[in-house]
């Protein structure tokens, strides 16, 4: 509590040094000439207040520049600030997103969209949290709860949508941090006049890594010449490179994305003898064209996504020394190919219908254990396979001045996990110009991925081919108030999960993928943002009633927090200088203590150059999370460094 009190004092102090409500900016704005207006960037969070209050879903939209100003400088950091989200590093590498306590180690329950295009690994359902150059991002939109009707499979816990920018200014950025972490990023654009526009961005990070402590890790289930410790440190680094290009001409869009990342952890049997590096490789090619007619918009799209992992690890018993879990042909067969068409038809000024059909083929190559020394295949973890999923959806949107109704459904036919129809019904009552109340019901559908069905690593992880698709049925009631300066959202949720796909630890036999018993959860989320004369405040609170509870039917509840709190503040000293801070609190989960993390940031502009000083984890909290990969409650897994410093410079040109 001493940290909370400290934060309160900081916020109160800032409020006493000149923060007053901006009562009327019009005098100043109206006095500006149009050439001066053209230079002003508006704030996205409040640019469409009517949209947020009238959107029949629980949506958060975060502006990348504001998040940077409060000291959150990566996509992962920013997502951790979303109400109801908990992010932590997984023990084998990568980062796991938990939404309302719902999670899976590789993020199978979260749908990741790059400008509306789903992007995920067909074998394990990993998502590219390190794959989008930070300079390419304009904003991040998040839907909490199922979003299956429009977006399809994987959207059971929520949807993360990265919206890329089309700015007038080019950007070059480099930062230096502890442990020789160097991060550099670029964004550039070229206006080709009648031939369209190209936006290009890239980012790379090198990192020596920090000392990451595991507590109560497992022991290998096979004899070794020595007994490895269960508590100890490993080196944890995060290195990646990413590239993104978008070409747009009227309604035509071509997108190219490629990335590679390496993070370190422990894999296989989850012991400190099995140090590993999670290598992810992915690229995405997307083509779409939109025709805007008088009262309709038609979009035809097709995308190709190659995405796979390699997992070199120490001391594998079959090889006897070091081995690599990898896909044959360097992952060339690990693809998703999706095509479809959608039509947005305006029936009248009050009604529209959004419909579409999609077909998607997913395929994987042989997943093997390969000797690190000879390159010989030692064993097959699963064989090449493919599946096709076809779906059709339609959603009617009808509104009057006071009401908005949304009724829709998606029919999905997956040749492995069967047929499902997932409906969505929303009613929104506009109370006045600023506020609304929403009642929403939606279902999410999630087919098991290849790994969950096929993998067999004896005494480590075992899949089951007869896994059924999981469904989450969610009901939300929300009150939203927005005006030009403030946003307030309060919502309660209740969801049931059927055939929930999860790893279940089996004593002496590693973990098995299973369909869990049906369970339910409920909770409360609050979100408040306000614009002050010289500051902007962001805050949110989420309560998950079943968090940190032992429950035979819901083994994952113990690993969800009861409470998340996030508070962020930007204080503008002048137009060229600002301070920011972001505080987050996550309550106890399983064996892990509550976590309180404070980041501070200082930025100063000199014409087109911006310098920043960022101190992360100011309280030097030891970042230990419970093991949400295998749900071993005594294992505490490291996630992020202690207090660390970053110095950065950005050039706009």
């Amino acid at each position, binding site marked *: 509590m001493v940290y909370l009190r400290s934060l309160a004092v900081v916020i109160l102090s800032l409020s006493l040094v000149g923060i007053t409500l901006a009562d009327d900016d019009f005098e100043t*704005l*109206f006095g500006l000439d149009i050439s001066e207006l053209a230079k002003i960037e508006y704030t996205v969070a409040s640019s469409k207040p009517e949209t947020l209050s009238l959107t029949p879903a629980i949506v958060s939209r975060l502006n990348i520049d504001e998040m940077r100003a409060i000291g959150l400088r990566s996509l992962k950091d920013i997502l951790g600030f979303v109400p109801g989200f908990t992010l932590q590093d997984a023990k084998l590498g990568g980062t796991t997103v938990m939404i309302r306590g719902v999670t899976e180690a590789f993020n199978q329950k979260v749908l990741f969209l790059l400008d509306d295009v789903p992007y995920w690994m067909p074998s394990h359902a990993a998502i590219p949290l390190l794959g989008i150059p930070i300079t390419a991002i304009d904003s991040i939109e998040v839907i909490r709860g199922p979003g299956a009707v429009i977006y399809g499979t994987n959207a059971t816990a929520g949807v993360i949508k990265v919206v890329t920018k089309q700015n007038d200014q080019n950007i070059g950025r480099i930062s230096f941090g502890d442990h020789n972490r160097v991060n550099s990023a670029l964004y550039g654009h070229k206006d080709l006049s009648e031939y369209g526009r190209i936006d290009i961005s890239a980012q790379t990070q090198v990192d020596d890594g920090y*000392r990451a402590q595991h507590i109560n890790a497992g022991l290998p289930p096979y004899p070794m010449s020595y007994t490895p410790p269960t508590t100890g440190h490993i080196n944890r680094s995060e290195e990646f490179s990413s590239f993104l290009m978008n070409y747009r001409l009227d309604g035509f869009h071509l997108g190219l994305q490629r990335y590679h990342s390496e993070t370190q952890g422990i894999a296989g049997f989850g012991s400190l003898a099995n140090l590993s590096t999670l290598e992810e490789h992915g690229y995405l090619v997307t083509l779409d064209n939109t025709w805007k007619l008088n009262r309709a918009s038609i979009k035809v799209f097709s995308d190709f996504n190659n995405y796979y992992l390699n997992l070199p690890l120490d001391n594998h018993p079959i090889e006897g020394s070091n081995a690599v879990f990898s896909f044959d042909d360097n992952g060339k067969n690990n693809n998703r190919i999706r095509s479809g068409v959608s039509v947005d038809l305006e029936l009248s000024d009050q009604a529209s219908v959004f419909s579409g059909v999609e077909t998607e083929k997913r395929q994987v190559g042989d997943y093997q254990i390969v000797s690190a020394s000879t390159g010989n295949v030692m064993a097959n973890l699963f064989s090449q396979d493919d599946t096709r999923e076809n779906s059709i959806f339609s959603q009617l949107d009808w509104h009057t001045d006071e009401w908005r109704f949304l009724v829709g459904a998606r029919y999905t036919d997956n040749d492995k996990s069967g047929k499902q129809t997932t409906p969505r019904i929303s009613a929104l009552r506009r109370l006045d110009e600023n506020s609304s109340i929403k009642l929403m019901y939606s279902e999410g559908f999630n087919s098991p991925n290849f790994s969950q069905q096929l993998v067999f690593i004896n005494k480590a992880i075992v899949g089951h081919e007869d896994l059924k698709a999981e469904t989450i049925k969610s009901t939300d009631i929300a009150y939203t108030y927005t005006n030009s300066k403030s946003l307030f959202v309060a919502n309660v949720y209740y969801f049931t999960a059927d055939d929930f796909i999860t790893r279940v630890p089996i004593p002496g036999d590693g973990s098995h993928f299973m369909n869990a018993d049906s369970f339910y959860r409920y909770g409360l989320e609050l979100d408040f943002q306000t614009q002050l004369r010289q500051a902007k405040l962001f805050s949110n609170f989420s309560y998950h009633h079943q968090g940190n509870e032992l429950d035979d039917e819901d083994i994952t509840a113990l690993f969800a927090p009861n409470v998340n709190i996030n508070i962020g503040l930007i204080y503008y*000293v002048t137009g060229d200088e600002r301070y920011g801070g972001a505080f987050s609190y996550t309550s106890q989960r399983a064996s892990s203590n509550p976590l309180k993390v404070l980041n501070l940031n200082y930025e100063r502009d000199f014409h087109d150059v911006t310098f920043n000083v960022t101190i992360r984890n100011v309280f030097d909290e030891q970042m230990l999370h419970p093991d949400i990969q295998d749900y071993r409650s005594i294992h505490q897994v490291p996630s992020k460094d202690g207090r660390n410093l970053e110095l950065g410079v950005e050039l706009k040109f």
Partner: protein
Amino acid sequence: MNISQQTKQPTSNLVSKVTRGSGTYVLSIVLALSSLASNIGYCGETEIRDVDATKLKLAYLVNFARYTAWPEDMFDQPDSPIVIGISQYHPYAQQLDNKIAGHSRADRQIIFKMVEKLDSHSDIHLFYDKPPRLHEMLASDWNHHVLTVGDEHDFIEKGGIIQLVEVGQKIRFYINREKAESIGLKIHFKILEMAMEWPGRSSA
């Protein structure tokens, strides 16, 4: 499975803080606080930051009014004001109703007026609203000599004159110059030269 095997561990003694050299952090905090202290009390009135798009668009309307010339018969008196009509449903309508927003190049006052019924405001020179009222207005003959401004993606195609667009967190606009001139409006080159090119039409 046997959940009871998963026991909660007492953790208060499990975590030992990592101790590090802290000189760099202390220096950074001191520098930051020094800078903060030197600026305490500053309350920049002229800085425009974190303005929302809705407000920014209103400032554009004022500039469009400032740099547009209407036929003289659109004014009752030589000193009659230029009236910007905005819907009663606009979030700032109450605040701006009858507000003087500045002066035009011909030294006419520019004032905002909240519009409740379209046909009762024949004195409006610039009208900004959203569908369906804007469509209703474009379809009527009431809009003779009125500079219409909207932010629908196909506003110009539907007969509007200036279409506001949001590009990279900035406001930009298209102009249907031919339409403006066809109803006797003369838009100053300063506005025209800042407009984006509208495919198939002359904008500047």
